């Protein structure tokens, strides 16, 4: 693995970018897709969604929206566990958290690719 000195800034930058994306964009998406649509306050047709998601720029946007906050999660999750005292397991925790975020990134790429 990379040394701490070089790997930490890398993960931290991803964390910071993800946190910013999450703070700026996620509440609206959550409100619309998680509550407004299911509760029937509004609706977005399948056709419109598909047309939108097929645009390259929107794809890029969706990639950032989904992948970056995963690193934000991974970083914080890793430290929650450490702050709860699981210091002996630092390396496995880090591998697991960042590993999951990397997996999520690959999955996002794959999903977006197929639209």
């Amino acid at each position, binding site marked *: 693995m990379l040394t701490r000195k070089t790997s930490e800034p890398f993960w931290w930058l991803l964390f910071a970018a993800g946190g910013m994306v999450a703070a700026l964009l996620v509440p*609206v998406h959550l409100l619309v897709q998680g509550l407004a649509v299911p509760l029937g306050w509004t609706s977005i047709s399948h056709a419109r969604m598909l047309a939108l998601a097929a645009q390259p720029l929107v794809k890029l946007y969706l990639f950032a929206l989904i992948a970056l906050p995963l690193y934000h999660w991974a970083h*914080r999750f890793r*430290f*929650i566990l450490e*702050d709860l005292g699981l210091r*002996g397991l630092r390396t496995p925790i880090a591998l697991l958290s960042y590993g999951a975020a990397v997996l999520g990134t690959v999955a996002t790429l794959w999903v977006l690719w197929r639209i």
Partner: protein
Amino acid sequence: MTVPRVERPGLYYPKLPATWWLRNANYFRFMLRELSSVFIALFLVVFLIQLHRLPQGPGAYAAYLETLRAPGWIIFHVLALAFALYHSVTWFNLTGVVQVVHLGERQVPPRLVVGASFALWAVVSVVLLWFLLRG
């Protein structure tokens, strides 16, 4: 890497219990703030599944939307929204502290930086809403 501490005889070494974050309100709020990332990530996974259903045709997509109507999912989303808002608020408050902005030689007071980020958030949210609800 954990560096083991050499303990000297005679001294009493206190141990911090894993429940330290229950000791005061600030610690607790810190835990909630960190925990918000879990809800945000879960929501994004749900969103990703929705996108995954998209190319499978209107039927699959509608079925998926139907599951989201279940009360359990609604509760989850309400909670997730609360955490997401909490994240946004804490995030903007903290970035004002971290990001030093200079105008010429003078440092812009953090309060202004925080104010500006909240304003940015509002604008982005309105634009995004308009775009999503447009038709």
